[in-house]
Every structure is written in structure tokens, then in C-alpha cells.
């Protein structure tokens, strides 16, 4: 068990990779065996993630050096700086890892019946597992170039999955837009990494953070990294590709793509807080994040009210919710240089932003899955053609209501507990931010009521009289996420104390991240 935990960071990345290339030979022999392989490997990965989380909460940051004689040997004998690939898992990384393990497992279970009628399922699961690898890699790596590689792995497999259903033109268009945007964002990240490498000859984030100077080139690199990751996240006005790509993907993949967005957001936070943490012009960058965050919230939600396609509608909501996180963490970043303000409300703002990532990662895939269930039942994404579906889809309706109440921040549910953290801490920074946040929340509820009415309410329509509730595996996948929502709803302070505050402290405390790499010199 101890050895398993020691090696768990790389096992979490490598097991989906191994399973990805096993799906093809096994899937040719038996479909059932392949499905079992996918589910079992992802369950095992989820178990490893939770075991690692427990270890990190006890022993602090977990370091893993690839190819070394011992995993904690970060700097090889005879070298001054870390040269090997290093995985570094701290409180923030492991929180993202927990989210990703739950959502990817739910998405795989959902796919079992959502994809059942498509051809090329072996490839589908290969790509899905590769995407899982890419996501975990982005979250756990302590090396800038590795971040780029895993970003590209996640992007390429994601684009292929978006375009998986080749029958219709819009999937191809969505996949093409996603891959073009990803390729350009990825290349800009690489360019920025080159700028940093040219000055410091380092790629390790911790070692780089120790020597970084904030020269003009560093500023350009910061802007490139920040905006490239923000584009992958879907920040207004760089969100235009987001609904195009997310609305056409199979619903299980859309749920996972939301978390890859969060992974890019995590990378942006990592760059701002850890890489540039000591030297960054915190108020300016913080205000950039806040301004774009407000724009994201407001434009996202107003565009969502306008939509008539159920998946596009939810995609715009995903954009709008991402704005809350940018604002929360942006406020924290703006007061990073001021310990007094940071203690009064900065830490709470960052915690609220991160808590919102966790909550959003539970209810948004759930809503996308219900959207996929609607598509599964009706064969269309067009809300104007739907109506009266609650008569037939009882489980989907209940789960949709849970997701709706949660995303709108209706009090007993988890969406509210993170929003109140953001509102109250941000209010002390600038009251206008809270007011806009509340308006956006109201509009969110209004638009979800509209979608709920047009899809589920009303008399039973003659064209949907026939048909059954969606298959069991889809319901189970939605149930997993709904159970997560209920758990966070009932025990918000348990979650905040055990997961969110360590994550926020991991972002604020740059020194611990650096020491974990450079302090371990033998």
C-alpha cells in the first residue's frame, strides 16, 4: 500500500494510458470485456486519487521524479537544478484530480449506453482514456513543458471525440473549431515556455519560480500563457468557439470537456500564483481577471437566455459560471501582495472561486448529461421541438431539477454555498462585483426555468408518446453526480475545511511548492 501511494501520481496518469491502448485489442475480441476494462481502470484510478488525497492531507506535497533511482530524488547527483520530469501534487492539484476522476468515471458509465448505437466504439474509449490521461497530466505535472504536452493530448483526443459522430456536418465543424483554437493556444503556450527557457534555462515550475525576474520578456510570456489558457477555458470574448464545440459533442464528452476547461483554468492559476507568485504585478493581473470574469458572467448568461438549442444553452451557462471563478480568484490575486487584506477576505475569495470549481464540476456535467438524455429520447437538440417530456422521463426530470437549483444558487443546494463565499468576500473588495454576481444568478434561474418549461412541462406531445426513460447506465452516471451535489450540500464546511482551504493555501503559499522541489536535494 505504501509503495502504491508512493507511485500513485504516475499510476494515475499511466493506468488510463495503458488501458487506452488495451481497449483496441480487447474490444476486437469482446465488447463486454472492453467496457469492463474501461470502468475498472477508471474506478481504480479514482481509488488511487482518493488514497493520494488522504496522503497529501497528512504528509503535504507529494513529489514524484520520473526515471530516477528513487522517486523523491528531484535533483540528480551532479546537477544544480531539477532536470528530470517531476510530478508535483499539492492541495490544489489533488482537488482537481478528485473532480476529474469522478467526472471521467461518470462519463464513461454514461457512454456505455449513450454511444451504444455508434460504430467505432473501440476508438471512442481509446480517445476517452487518452483524454483522462491528458487531464490528470495537466493537473499533476510540475513541469511547464509537460503541461504543454498533456494540454495537447487532452485537446487532440477531445477534438477527435467532439467530431466522433461523423454523420452530421455540425460535429465536424465543432471539432474543427476546437482543434484550431487548441492548436493555436497550445503553440502560444509553447512560445511562452520558450521565452522563459531562453532566460532561465529551466522548465520546472518550482525551480523557475525561484529565479524568475519579471523582465519585459517575462511579462509577454505571462500574457501569452494567461490568455492562451483563458481561451481554452472559454473566457469572454474568447468564448466564441466554446458553444460550437461543446454543443455537438456526445453528451458524456461534453461533461468531460467542462473539466478540461477547469484544468486549463487551474493551469492559469498555477502560472499566476505559483510560477509568477513572488514577482507578479498582482493588482493589475487580478483586475484583468476580474474585468474579464465579469464580462464572462454577464455575456455568458445573457447569451444563454437567448438560445434555443439545449446543449448550446447549457454551454453558455458553463461560460457564465466560469466567470464566478475568475472573479473569485481574481479578487484573491489582486490582494496577494497585502497579507492583511489577504487574511480578511482574499483567502475566502480564492476559496469561494475554487469551491465553485468543485460545485460546477458536479452540476454542469449533470446538466449536460440530462441534455444528452433529452437528445437520446427526442433525437434533437432543438428546444422548440420539445415539450411534456416529464411524463416519460421521470428520473431525468428530477435530476435536471437538482442541477438547475444548484446552478442557480437556490439556498439549500451546493451552488449557493460557494456563491455566498464569493459574494461576501468580493463585497468587501468592491460591492459592484457582488451585485453583478447576484443579477447573473437571477438570470441563470430565469433561463433554466424557461428551458425546464419548454422541455419538460406541458401536456404530453403526440410525437413523444412512444419511448421509454433513458437506459440505466445513463441514469446511474447522472446519479453519481447528483450524489456528489447532495453530499456537498449537506456538508459544506467539511468540504471547505478538508479540500478547499488546503487548495487555496496551496495557491497562496508559493514557498512550499518551491521547497518541495528544491529542498529535497540529497
Amino acid at each position, binding site marked *: 500500500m505504501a509503495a502504491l501511494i508512493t*507511485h500513485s501520481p504516475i499510476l494515475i496518469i499511466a493506468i488510463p494510458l495503458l488501458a487506452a*491502448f488495451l481497449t483496441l485489442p480487447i474490444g476486437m475480441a469482446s465488447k463486454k470485456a472492453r467496457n469492463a476494462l474501461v470502468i475498472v481502470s477508471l474506478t481504480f484510478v479514482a481509488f488511487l486519487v482518493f488514497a493520494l488525497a488522504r496522503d497529501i492531507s497528512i504528509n503535504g506535497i507529494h513529489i514524484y521524479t520520473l526515471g530516477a533511482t528513487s522517486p523523491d530524488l528531484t535533483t540528480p547527483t551532479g546537477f544544480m537544478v531539477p532536470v528530470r520530469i517531476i510530478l508535483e501534487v499539492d492541495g490544489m492539484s489533488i482537488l482537481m484530480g478528485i473532480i476529474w476522476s469522478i467526472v471521467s468515471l461518470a462519463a464513461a458509465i454514461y457512454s456505455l449506453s449513450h454511444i451504444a448505437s455508434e460504430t467505432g466504439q473501440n476508438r471512442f474509449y481509446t480517445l476517452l482514456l487518452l483524454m483522462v490521461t491528458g487531464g490528470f497530466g495537466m493537473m499533476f505535472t510540475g513541469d511547464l513543458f509537460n503541461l504543454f504536452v498533456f494540454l495537447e493530448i487532452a485537446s487532440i483526443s477531445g477534438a477527435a471525440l467532439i467530431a466522433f459522430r461523423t454523420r452530421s456536418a455540425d460535429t465536424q465543424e465543432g471539432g474543427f473549431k476546437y482543434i484550431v483554437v487548441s492548436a493555436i493556444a497550445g503553440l502560444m503556450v509553447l512560445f511562452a515556455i520558450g521565452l522563459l527557457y531562453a532566460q532561465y534555462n529551466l522548465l520546472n515550475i518550482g525551480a523557475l519560480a525561484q529565479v524568475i525576474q519579471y523582465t519585459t520578456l517575462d511579462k509577454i510570456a505571462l500574457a501569452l500563457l494567461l490568455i492562451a489558457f483563458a481561451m481554452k477555458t472559454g473566457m469572454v470574448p474568447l468564448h466564441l468557439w466554446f458553444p460550437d464545440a461543446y454543443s455537438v459533442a456526445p453528451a458524456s464528452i461534453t461533461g468531460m470537456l467542462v473539466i478540461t476547461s477547469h484544468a486549463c483554468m487551474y493551469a492559469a492559476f498555477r502560472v499566476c500564483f505559483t510560477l509568477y507568485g513572488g514577482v507578479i504585478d498582482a493588482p493589475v493581473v487580478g483586475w484583468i481577471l476580474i474585468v474579464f470574469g465579469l464580462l464572462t458572467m454577464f455575456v455568458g448568461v445573457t447569451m444563454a437566455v437567448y438560445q434555443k438549442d439545449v446543449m448550446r444553452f447549457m454551454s453558455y451557462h458553463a461560460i457564465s459560471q466560469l466567470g464566478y471563478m475568475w472573479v473569485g480568484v481574481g479578487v484573491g490575486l489582486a490582494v496577494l501582495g497585502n497579507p492583511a487584506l489577504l487574511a480578511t477576505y482574499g483567502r475566502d475569495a480564492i476559496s469561494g472561486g475554487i469551491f465553485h470549481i468543485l460545485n460546477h464540476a458536479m452540476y454542469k456535467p449533470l446538466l449536460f448529461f440530462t441534455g444528452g438524455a433529452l437528445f437520446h429520447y427526442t433525437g434533437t437538440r432543438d428546444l422548440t421541438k420539445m415539450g411534456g417530456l416529464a411524463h416519460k422521463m421521470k428520473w431525468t426530470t428530477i435530476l435536471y431539477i437538482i442541477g438547475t437549483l444548484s446552478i442557480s444558487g437556490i439556498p439549500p443546494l451546493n451552488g449557493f454555498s460557494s456563491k455566498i463565499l464569493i459574494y461576501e468576500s468580493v463585497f468587501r473588495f468592491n460591492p459592484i462585483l457582488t451585485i453583478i454576481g447576484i443579477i447573473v444568478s437571477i438570470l441563470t434561474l430565469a433561463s433554466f426555468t424557461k428551458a425546464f418549461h419548454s422541455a419538460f412541462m406541458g401536456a404530453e406531445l403526440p410525437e413523444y408518446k412512444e419511448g421509454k426513460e433513458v437506459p440505466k447506465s445513463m441514469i446511474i452516471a447522472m446519479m453519481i453526480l447528483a450524489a456528489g451535489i447532495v453530499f456537498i450540500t449537506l456538508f459544506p464546511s467539511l468540504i471547505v475545511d478538508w479540500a478547499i482551504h488546503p487548495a487555496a493555501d496551496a495557491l497562496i503559499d508559493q514557498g512550499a511548492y518551491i521547497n518541495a522541489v528544491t529542498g529535497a536535494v540529497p
Partner: protein
Amino acid sequence: MLSKIVRTVTNEFMLFILVFGFYIIAHGHLTPGGGFQGGAVIVSGVVMLLVAFNSQELKKTLHERALSIMESTGALIFIALAFAGIGAAFFYNFLVGTPIFGRIPATGPNPGDIWTGGVIPLMNFAVGLKVIAGLSAVVLAMALFSSGEEIEE
């Protein structure tokens, strides 16, 4: 399908391209090159075959299914080699000092010894296998696409 002269020359050249590609793969740990580069060289031969014969002809020899299995095998060998070092750490070069590719060359300029590098030459072969299969499948699929045929699975 191009003329008989082109086809014959292509067939003859294919051997040299294969040999050169494998040379690059095998010497990946000593000279510039490696799995991807050597694989790409061999796939350039496949592209040449594709030009000389047409995609329908080539499809009879290069089966989609075989290419898929070959690609998966290459990837699996690579990951298995990485996993094999997990006694120390993932990707640990456990073959150094053993009879297989285990010689340790002197640091500094040396004439080059093929029997060095530990798992690196083996990984080069695995990557080479994957690249040959993967890129061949890509060019073949695109050629079939543009000739208007659907590929199954």
C-alpha cells in the same frame, strides 16, 4: 495507378527505404534520429507506394485492422517498458548494467556503441512500430477518403 516503370522502381526503392528507416530507428540512441524519425522515413515509402499504386490496391495489402493492432502493440510495449522500471521509479532505466543493451559508455566523445542505452533502444523500436502503423493508417485513410470511399471501423 502509374506506369509499370514507376511501379517497378517504387518496389525496388521500398527495400532501401525500409533499411534506412530501420537504421535510423536502431541508432536512435547514438546518432540523430529515433523512433519517430525512422518511422516517418518508412511511412514516406508507404506514401510513395500510395502514389505509384492507388489507394484501393494498397488497401488489399495494408489492412486497417492489422495496422490498428500494430499501433496498439507499439504503444503497449512502450508503456510496459516504462512500467517495468517502477521498482525504482516509472521510466527508470532498469536495463543499465544488464547483458541487454546494458553497456555504459565513457562520458565524452566516443566512437559509439550500439549495445548501450538500456531501455532507450527498445523504446525507440516501440515508438517506431507505433509511428509506422499510425502514420500509414493516417495517409491511407486520407487517400481512401479523397477517393470517396468510407472506411469501416
